[in-house]
């Protein structure tokens, strides 16, 4: 069970970091919506699971959070990337690309091999 969560959390973390990188500071709700949108609504995200992932990233020092005002003048906690977070996105993205590329080769039709 733990392994599965880790994989999931790992990818979720990457999604969060990547979204923050492209959109700038964002609150939890916005992040959740954005991730859903980006996945083309194919990802059914339980919004609640986002918060432990955010907390973990914050504890690890990749992101930091501050209270601010949303577009609709609501109080919300905004998350943004730290320097460490920025370099982490690049590294993790590269790693992920490599992993998927390798996997893609395995999953490609047999006559290719």
């Amino acid at each position, binding site marked *: 069970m733990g392994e599965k969560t880790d994989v999931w959390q790992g990818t979720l973390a990457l999604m969060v970091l990547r979204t923050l990188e492209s959109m700038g500071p964002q609150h939890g709700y916005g992040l959740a919506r954005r991730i859903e949108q980006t996945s083309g609504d194919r990802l059914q995200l339980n919004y609640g699971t986002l*918060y432990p992932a955010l907390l973990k990233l914050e504890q690890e020092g990749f992101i930091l959070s501050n209270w601010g005002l949303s577009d609709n003048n609501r*109080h919300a906690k905004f998350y943004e990337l730290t320097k460490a977070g920025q370099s982490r996105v690049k590294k993790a993205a590269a790693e992920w690309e490599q992993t998927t590329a390798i996997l893609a080769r395995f999953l490609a039709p047999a006559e290719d091999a």
Partner: protein
Amino acid sequence: MRKLRAFWIRLLDLIGARRNEDDFAAELESHVEMHTDDGIRAGLTPEEARRQALIALGGAEQTRQAFRERRTLPWLETLWQDIRFGLRILCKNPGYTAVAVLTLALGIGANTAVFTVAQAALLRSWPAKEPSRLVRLIAATPQGEEINFSYADYRDLAEQTKSLEGIFVYNRRVKMLRVGAESRAVLDDVVSPNYFSVLGITAQAGRFFTTGPQPPSEPGVVISDSLWHRVFNADPSLVGKQIWLTNQAFTVLAVAPPGFRGLERMVPTDLWIPVATEYPSQELADRKNREFEVLGRLRPGATTEEARAELDSLGRSLAQSYPAADKARSVSLISERERLREGMIPTLILMTAVGLVLLICCANVAGLVLARSDARRKEVAMRLALGAGRLRLMRQLLTESLLLASVGSALGLLLAVGLLRLQPVLMIPAEVEVGLDLHLDASVLMFTAAVAILSVLIFGLAPAIQLSKTSLVSTLKGEGTGAAKGLRRWTLRNALVLGEIALSVVLLTASGLVVRSLLYSRSLPLGFDRQRQLIFFDLIPGIVGYHSERSAVFFEQVQEKAAALPGVRHAALARRVLLSDSGGGMSQRVSIPGVELPQGQLSIPIKFDAVDGNYFRAVGTRLMQGREFNSGDNPSTARVVVVSQTMEERFWPGQEVVGRQIVANGTACQIVGVVEDAKVNSVHETPEPYMYFPFAQQPSAEGTLIIEADGNSKALTARALSEIQRVDRNVPVTVRTVNYLMQQAFWADQMAAGFVAALGALGIFLGAIGLYGVVAFTVSRRNREIGIRMALGAERKDVLRLVLGHGLGLAAIGTAIGLLASFAAMRLLATMLYGVRPTDPLAFAGSAILVVFVALAASWIPARRAAAVDPMQSLRTE
């Protein structure tokens, strides 16, 4: 790195838990509100929008739980819960907790203390660089192995050896260090100048001896760190200054590093003096003058065998070249480390013994835990029924045991520190500092922690497993009396308790005997009055170069000045002090006109003292016949002597003695008095003939001024010291009191009594705990039976009798075994006992009565509990 950072943050959040929780609640609320806003904008009613938002979130409470788990460290939180719960449980049963903790503290404390001693004696790395390469030279002679060499032989060996890269000598001596008005004995090692460099030791201040061929122009000395602190208050400017040693000025060259105490662990060196300063060269050249121990360091790459072979051939050539001194002596070597390990076996035995004590302690605590956990089975079953995991439960129970052990070890450490502090008290009083360098360090703390964990495994694991195996249904239904299951353990534990009780009987009998022996010894007449405030000033004018006539003047002046001091009842002079450690072999050959000596000898040696006319009055030795000395007995008058009662009875039984003559060392002396027997060397010696000569007629360059003080002896000591200084400030003085003499004289007896009595107390304590555990366990097992008995008409006192009978029955069997064992074992003590026979009925009866009494007390508590059983409740719930 990142993981560590996250761990710390989580740990910190664990402490400041509250605020973040609120923060997250606000964040969640804002999340839901924003989602609801979006829903309303999309055309939903506010209620529906909020419902949708909560669904998408996946439940506010679940989210909060997931967040909480990530935020802090849940396992730590559980542990903290367990600890708090454990503390509550332990505080609820203060009696049980106190007894268990105390038992563990005794076991762990004793182990820690013994380990510290073992470590100081054996394990602590030697204060030298690469100690494994240090070797000790030994000589095989027809008389056996020797470790002493002459300096000349050492020089030859040092010049010729190739397998040893360094080789040095040392010789232990005593010097008098002047501190203010007093002098005190210090231990010095006379060493070759390369001593420190071969050992590989660097000074913490100053520089060690130069190793050049020229002896230093002025005498130099290296002092130990301990002496530097003890006497010189760690004066940083001491190096380069002069100190006075046995009336000679020495320049302090250096201070040895802390922890370096010379080469003998029990008897630390205070200072080091080079050979050339202490010995005239002709003495060093004398090959028969073997005063030095020789140590060397193996050259890197050289093996012990090679070095041994080489030394063997060097030794042969020495024997050839100097047959007068070195014939039939061969030289060899042993590893210095190996030699130090000789102390290993007694230490191992001691470690095993205290290890066994710890085992007994653990068994006892296991008994307590078991007795209590039996009573807790309902609680455990209830918790199991409420869904607690068995592993979780075991963790909780082990946490409780760990708590007991932690508190126990903390207390045990304190106990160990206390025991180690006792060392100066336990060592024989001596004029020099002796004893091991004992202190707690990291390795001792590690050892204690390991012992604590080990004891938790021993006493905590079995009850925890057993308890967590509690059968839920049968216990809640009340079938959990499980007599059959407990039966086997019951007999094993009974045997253990019997053993404990028997052992405590043996130990108590032994302590009874030893204490009675001590009391007897203390009541023995010593031949002087120990109640008097006697102060002894040992004076050695000989050191300053006084010959006997000048010394006589000196002593006379000192005595006169001291006698004139206010608060002085008597001031007397004596050559030696009774019961003091200054040997006792001082004797004169005596022949007695008209008396046949044993085996037809012409003369026999008889011990003597030289005292002045005030001596008997000052120390309280009773005069039986004749007169004391007076100022008329001086070098120019006729020789006189006072003899002891035993001497009188031995040589002139039933006859008039005063007026007779003896010939001592060729001089005729007239007997002028008879005094009672006095103890010369030890309290336990059998009286032998003894003589007193007038101080003035036995000139000597050393002696003791004895003052009998009126009251405050401290102030008087200072005044007397300054009076002595005024007569001659160069004569070394050491001060002793009558208490010091008594401590020294009774040291061995007191140690034996203290040690055996402490063991006895420990034994009876453990026996009581063991018995209590067994009886309490049985009571909780027989709860239902007791209920039935009471329901059938048994009265409370019957129940009380039943339980007490069980405890006392065990105690009686144990005591009987113990008495039998004592009967056999006490014979071993016979040589240590004075004035009491090893079969002394009082000691035997006393220990038996004490044990039975303690057993009664130990059974009383569970018996009262059993008698308080409410039959209705017991039958209903069980």
